[in-house]
């Protein structure tokens, strides 16, 4: 391998290990938290902001119940450090209903009975929200793939698929109207 020319190191800021201020932009609101670097986005949302919609199930990126949308993409908030989310836009299930009116996905989940215990539901909905934001005309296969990173132990999948398609329909008809 070739030698790289070494330049002087730029100055860097070390943060932590103790609690320090972290700025988050969640559901169109600014927050300042005081947390350690090891605070995950999931714990920050749940414990520091009281947004308990995203669930802790495995805490290691193997279930999808903690799914939130960061800069438009669904991600696992348990494998995301809060400190690395500054200057990002974070969207959680709590922001979906607007002015007391349910989002089409929420409405469709109720109508189709697309849940049983409901613990995975916020994650499922956020995955589908990201899909519908990007693709207003999803096929059944698109819907299935969109929630393929969200486990449902009760087995509500068939109805989740139906709810995803139905929500897309509701949104399209709203746009058309």
């Amino acid at each position, binding site marked *: 391998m070739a030698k790289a020319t070494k330049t002087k190191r730029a100055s860097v800021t070390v943060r932590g290990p103790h609690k320090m201020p972290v700025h988050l932009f969640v559901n169109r609101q600014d927050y300042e938290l005081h947390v*350690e670097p090891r605070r995950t986005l999931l714990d920050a949302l749940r414990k520091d902001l009281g947004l308990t919609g995203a669930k802790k199930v495995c805490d290691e990126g193997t279930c999808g*119940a903690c799914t939130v949308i960061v800069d438009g993409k669904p991600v696992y908030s348990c494998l995301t450090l809060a400190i690395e989310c500054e200057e990002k836009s974070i969207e959680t*299930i709590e922001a979906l209903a607007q002015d007391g009116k349910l989002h089409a996905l929420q409405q469709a989940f*109720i109508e189709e009975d697309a849940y*049983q215990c409901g613990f995975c539901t916020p994650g499922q909905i956020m995955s589908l929200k990201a899909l519908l934001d990007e693709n207003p005309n999803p096929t059944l296969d698109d819907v*299935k793939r969109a929630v393929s990173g969200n486990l449902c*132990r009760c087995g509500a999948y068939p109805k989740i698929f139906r709810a995803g398609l139905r929500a897309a329909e509701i949104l399209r008809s709203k746009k058309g109207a």
Partner: protein
Amino acid sequence: MARVVKTKTEFEGNFFEQYIVIEGDELTPWAADEKLEKVGKCTPRVDGSERVTGDAKYTYDIQLAGMLYGRILRSPYPHARIKSLDTRAAEKLHGVRAVLTHKNIPQIPLRMGQHFLLEPTLRYAGDEVAFIVADDEEIAEDALELIEVDYQELPFVIDPEEASQPSSPQIHLNGNVLNGKPEEYERGDAEKALREADVTIEARFTTQVALHNSLETHGSVCAWEGDSLTVWDSTQHIYGVRAGVAQALGLPLNKVRVIKKYMGGGFGSKNGAGKYTLLAALAAKKVGRPVHMMLTRKEENLAAGNRNNTIQYLRLGAKRDGTLTAIYLRSYAGLGAYSLWGTSPGGPARQLYACPNVKTIQYSVFTNTGPMAAFRAPGYVEGTFSFEQAIDMLAQKLHMDPLELRLKNYIDTNPMSGMPYSTKGLREAYERGAKLIGWRERKSKKITQGTQRRGFGMASQIWGGSGGPPAYALCKLNNDGSATIITGTQDIGTGTKTVLAQIAAEELGFPIERVSVELGDTQDGVYSPLSAGSMTLPSVGPAVRVAAHDAKEQLLSIAAQVLEKPKDQIKLKDGLLHVQGLEKPVELKEVLAMKLQNFMIIGKGARGPNPEKYSVNTFGAQFADVTVDTETGEVLINKIVAVHESGRVINPLTIGSQIEGGVIQGLGFALTEERVLDRHTGLVLNPNLEEYKVPTALDVPEIEHEMIDRADPYANNLGAKGVGEPPIIPTAAAIANAISDAIGVHVTDGPITPDKILKALNKTQIGGNHA
């Protein structure tokens, strides 16, 4: 006037006779052709919006001022004794508020003294050693690393059949076999009948340990106010948790309040107080602050229960015409380290068919592994996997269609008790299912070319699901014409709240929007049984109906007096009083609020006894259509058909969810789910959702389901039976039979993974040095 009556109840395949207290008069069951407006209609969940907005508060979500977090140190050995334990460094860590060990807490016996809350003897890898509470979970975890324990390792045993031998390491003083001997059942003479049978088959089956993996882990949040304890618990049985906590801590029942509003899955594993509950309560008392103690995913999979593994030796005998003459089953089930009961893998063998000679010998055996817990139809899922495969083996040997063989041995009376079934819709389920899957045309759809093989299989289901007393309900009519149903049951995700609202609305003649249902709180509620054993609806539903009826009768009496009309000329419909002779219906608030101000009507209801002369059971049949890749061993399920009979359908929308969910869990059990233990160390290798593979969205095939919707005239005043467990029971067996139909070999060890299929097809090279 309260009455004491004797009744028979069934739970998880076991029958109990008990005295129960009931109150109020029993109602005549709704007739099969009764015109019902709310019951039987697709009704979205009354708490749907909480579930989709993140507003629903689960135990995990409870946050209280000053709340601390708990973490448990667990044994790294399957069998060991704590020689010494040093917690000083952990206690000194900044943010640690208490460390509990067997040295500083009272000796609290659990499971009738089988073990203690914390004790120096550890009987499985995962057994509780110490408990830490700290300001946050990470700090508690830091502290766990600082506890020093010197363990003396003891010999251990993990295989139930091996553990049943007296020479095995002993886990409890009374030996490893539960109750000292196997549970035996016999009718006729099975051994003789086997000798005399025209045709016999014999096979050994094994089923794996399956993990519930409820998405919400087990756990509790405990807070004291003076000498009163409030416990938020992720449980299927708030009154069970209350009793367990009160007994363990020596508290009167009225000083323990248990709350569970929403729960993230339980599937049978959350039927009582856990060690986590008691530890959190003790620690909360000690430090004077609330304690949040939810298990981690790993702990959930080590210590929170499992579907036990089984080894089953099965022999069947039949006449040449297919008449079953003998069934003989010897089974071993691994209980893990602690249990007071064992499951009945022999249940299906004893009950499914008319067979005069049946013997089942069931060993439930302690092993040095995580304790078992009920898991959706415990015993019957395992027993059906083997028994219904054996029936197919017999059909093959007899050159009979598997469905014809089943019909040949159909029986309308319970072969164990001789009593008729209250309803049995299995024949219709077979017929409908066969039609939906294309059973009779299946041979034309088989693929025999290339590497793909398509096959069809079926299996039958029997289970209890009668529910029973005691269960109580109250119905409060508020003076604005709204109603509140109060029970002490729990909605574990099945839609209990919604069906209870339907029943109350039906009986009251109210719109469903005017009925709310309160449950999940021991202090505000009235006793209801655990939500397990497919018993919630058939236990609590009838009590709700009685309570609503009582309230309605009171309301009509009051209305009669206020309106000065005979009571029998007043009817309640759509929440309005329709009075004979009056043109316009009368609003309820006109009667209640305007005339009587703050009057409240309180209706009371109790679940009546079960019928004495009928056997109340649930039935179903499932059919599977699969394609097996004979080169890769991969199984593609093309379709599952599920047809079940659970009496009257109260809510077709939510019952469909139950059926689909059961099938999906069943296919996970059939194909992918298995707890893996390291044979040399006894440690669980996959206590996580990565290597313990539950079905994903893409594992789900088309599932077509139907209910044989038939009001049961004897079961209870609704005519409804339970449905939570039935749909998981036959799935794995149906899939196994379909795979066998596809590849021509039965895979008798679950789960049926690609490696087992390739092995069955003789495509696997056996490892040399390491066998």
